[in-house]
């Protein structure tokens, strides 16, 4: 099997998107769907082939045939490593499933849905594979722009526009933070290739490098929806069409953390990561804050997509803990977690989309008892909830276990374990609570708050009495795949190889300059099934208890009715979610100062 | 020349504050247009003719024009709605 050119996964969907958009007035709907689906499938194949080709050594590709001249990189390069290629493959897979799900359904975009999705996919592929800092920014912008447009796809209601506007404003501010960071880095190194920058910066550790890192990281952390940068995410998710939510939650948000890790490991590998611990502690701090914030808010929400959106925030924080620890074992865990989470979350969003399609609502109080006849949907939803609660064999448990085992210090180990337990229990509880109310009609309808009443036009034209199989297929496949890391024996070793290569700064730089590299893969860590099972079981039990507490709290004695408080509209964290773009931008600034200040002041 | 460059930078700083402090949208569009032109002049002075050209095209003409068009469209649609309400 020959390895295709890494330019193809970018160029092919872009050409297809331009074709579909230019001829949209002349193409039939089924033909447009067919072209889009075929393009996504072809791209999946291309990315998978690249993943395979990058297995033994990174693929380096110079656009325009501009090879580096001595130490100076002249053109734009791609360096495809297994992590980048793997994320690109995941992007293509999720897009393909999204197209299958929305086959001749999502129609509110006046035939612009497919080209926008294809551009979004191409941007994610480019973002994952590029080795050039400014190119990374360009793909960041392309991804954002496509995301803003996709977010405004349903223009029947005022709410989508507002969500899309907040999303666009905060992420654009993030883009400018990144650009400022790029300018600062360029000023001291005179280079834009990340490997060259890493080589030139060496172990330089002064205020400029720290500030540049703070600018770049806070820009990408806005995309990664880490507290306090996260406010845009629930607004955007609660208004986007289902396949778009799948891509947002499944991959786009995680790509933010990926970019942070890629930059810090390649560019600041020796200046920021190696001898100093400030960066790690800062990320641990922000990650923990995100886990708690997202978890609490997830439990407090009653709009199905907002529940899932806040759970993404909480899980994103948990993944950032893995990034913060940053040893090969932790990154292996991060990758496992990312894959399993993407799949579980995609499955849940598809299932929520089925509910929207069938019952025309996303509000928990309105859906109360109405899903009792939907057995298969109920099974998918509950399995998704259990997957989020990280019960083996779902891959999140393996990821957790690997990240926990990578912490050697006792206090840190305890803290990380606690954080993972919290995110599993809270998000699992919220999903299970929704399931108990909607599919089993247990307890009461739950409080109706304002956010729960955000109306959403369903993906399809009118109320549907049956659910086509093509909607179930992606959901079921996703839930099944989220168990793959544990069930398929090769996965652990693959992820370990990918993580190890991802972190090796010298290897990355050497490949850019076409120097010979010697690479010996150390033996992979083994996870302990017993303790994983125990952790998962405890988390699921706690999630069930929490969910039952929320559902049956009216039957409890007065002293035990705290859930009303946590669920109710008076919950203090909810007030911060104000829907005002000015607030969100101010919080982004606070986050930037927090991040930069910690990097400056911590040892 | 150096003094001129510092002056123009100072002017950019002051105008930027002026643009965000202007609360009336129509005035703000004019301020933005002026600011765009000022930036274009700065680009010329700082030896960037390519960027200056596109800044004139975009920052001083296209972007303010777009804002004006958007404002015109909003004004138009609110008038339409008024008419409809009166008709009812």
């Amino acid at each position, binding site marked *: 099997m020959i390895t295709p050119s890494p330019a193809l996964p970018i160029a092919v969907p872009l050409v297809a998107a331009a074709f579909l958009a230019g001829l949209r007035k002349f193409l039939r709907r089924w033909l447009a769907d067919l072209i889009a689906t075929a393009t996504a499938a072809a791209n999946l194949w291309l990315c998978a082939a690249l993943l395979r080709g990058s297995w033994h050594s990174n693929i380096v590709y110079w656009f325009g045939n501009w090879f580096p001249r001595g130490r100076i990189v002249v053109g734009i390069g791609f360096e495809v490593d297994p992590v980048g290629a793997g994320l690109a493959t995941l992007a293509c897979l999720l897009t393909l499933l999204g197209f299958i799900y929305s086959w001749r359904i999502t129609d509110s975009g006046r035939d612009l849905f497919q080209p926008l999705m294809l551009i979004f996919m191409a941007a994610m592929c480019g973002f994952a594979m590029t080795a050039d800092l400014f190119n990374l920014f360009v793909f960041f*912008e392309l991804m954002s722009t496509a995301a803003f447009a996709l977010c405004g796809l349903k223009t029947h209601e005022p709410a989508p526009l*507002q969500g899309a506007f907040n999303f666009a404003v905060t992420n654009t501010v993030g883009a400018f933070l990144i650009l400022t960071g790029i300018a600062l880095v*360029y000023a001291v190194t005179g280079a834009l290739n990340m490997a060259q920058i890493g080589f030139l910066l060496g172990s330089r550790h002064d205020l400029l490098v720290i500030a540049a890192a703070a600018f770049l990281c806070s820009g990408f952390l806005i995309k990664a929806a880490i507290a306090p940068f996260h406010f845009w995410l629930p607004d955007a998710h609660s208004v986007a069409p289902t396949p778009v939510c799948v891509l947002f939650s499944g991959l786009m948000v995680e790509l933010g953390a990926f970019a942070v890790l890629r930059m810090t490991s390649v560019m600041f590998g020796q200046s920021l990561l190696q001898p100093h611990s400030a960066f790690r502690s800062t990320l641990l701090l922000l990650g923990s804050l995100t886990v708690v914030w997202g978890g609490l808010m997830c439990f407090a929400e009653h709009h199905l997509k907002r529940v899932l959106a806040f759970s993404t925030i909480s899980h994103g924080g948990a993944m950032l803990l893995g990034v913060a620890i940053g040893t090969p074992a932790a990154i292996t865990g991060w990758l496992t977690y990312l894959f399993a989470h993407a799949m579980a979350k995609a499955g849940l969003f598809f299932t929520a989309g089925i509910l929207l399609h069938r019952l025309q609502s996303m509000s928990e109080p309105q859906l109360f008892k109405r899903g009792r006849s939907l057995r298969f949907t109920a099974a998918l939803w509950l399995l998704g909830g259990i997957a989020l609660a990280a019960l083996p064999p779902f891959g999140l448990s393996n990821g957790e276990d690997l990240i926990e085992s990578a912490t050697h210090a006792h206090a840190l180990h305890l803290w990380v374990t606690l954080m993972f337990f919290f995110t599993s229990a809270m998000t699992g509880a919220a999903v299970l609570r929704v399931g108990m109310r909607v599919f089993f009609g247990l307890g009461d309808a739950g409080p109706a708050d304002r956010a729960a009443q955000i109306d959403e036009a369903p993906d399809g034209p009118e109320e549907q009495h049956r659910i086509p199989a093509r909607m179930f297929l992606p959901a079921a496949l996703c839930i099944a795949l989220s168990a793959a890391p544990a069930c398929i024996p090769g996965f652990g070793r693959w992820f370990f190889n990918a993580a190890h290569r991802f972190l090796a700064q010298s290897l990355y730089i050497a490949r850019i300059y076409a120097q010979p590299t010697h690479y010996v893969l150390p033996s992979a860590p083994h996870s302990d099934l017993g303790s994983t099972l125990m952790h998962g079981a405890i988390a699921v039990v706690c999630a069930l208890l929490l969910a039952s507490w929320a559902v049956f709290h009216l039957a409890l004695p007065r002293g035990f009715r705290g859930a009303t408080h946590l669920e109710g509209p008076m919950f203090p964290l909810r007030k911060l979610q104000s829907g005002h773009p000015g607030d969100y931008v101010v919080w982004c600034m606070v986050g930037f100062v927090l991040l930069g200040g910690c990097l400056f002041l911590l040892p | 020349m150096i003094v001129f460059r510092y002056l123009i930078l100072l002017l950019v700083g002051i105008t930027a504050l002026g643009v965000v402090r202007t609360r009336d949208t129509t005035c703000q569009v004019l301020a933005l247009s002026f600011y765009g032109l000022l930036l274009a002049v700065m680009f010329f002075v700082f030896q960037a003719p390519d960027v200056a050209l596109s800044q004139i095209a975009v920052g001083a003409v296209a972007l303010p024009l777009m804002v004006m068009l958007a404002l015109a469209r909003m004004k138009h649609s609110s008038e339409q709605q008024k008419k409809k309400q009166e008709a009812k």
Partner: protein
Amino acid sequence: MSQIAHIFPFLVAGWVFLCGLYGIATSRHLVHTVISLAVVQTSTYVLLLNIGFRTGGAAPVFADISPGITTVDPIVQALMLTDVVVEATVMALLLAMVVKAYEKAGTLSPDDLRLMRG
């Protein structure tokens, strides 16, 4: 004093960035928010341009000067050029959202548009 003179242009860029953010934070009109965002963007131009600037450098166009002469940095100019495109188009998209929101909700104040609260 000379130290301030050496970093003054960079400080102007930072100042413009903060001005734009101030505009967004205090905005009472969505079009104003969009324009403030455009101001934030211009700060990146100012920064990039000054980073690549060289006292006495010529413009990087060799139509009438001979190759080999000292020029200012063409890379930052290329980056800015593409950046200008981004500005225009992203602002167009944001304005379209504002127009549509106005047509649907009838208000332009970010304070009244809080459907997403909580």
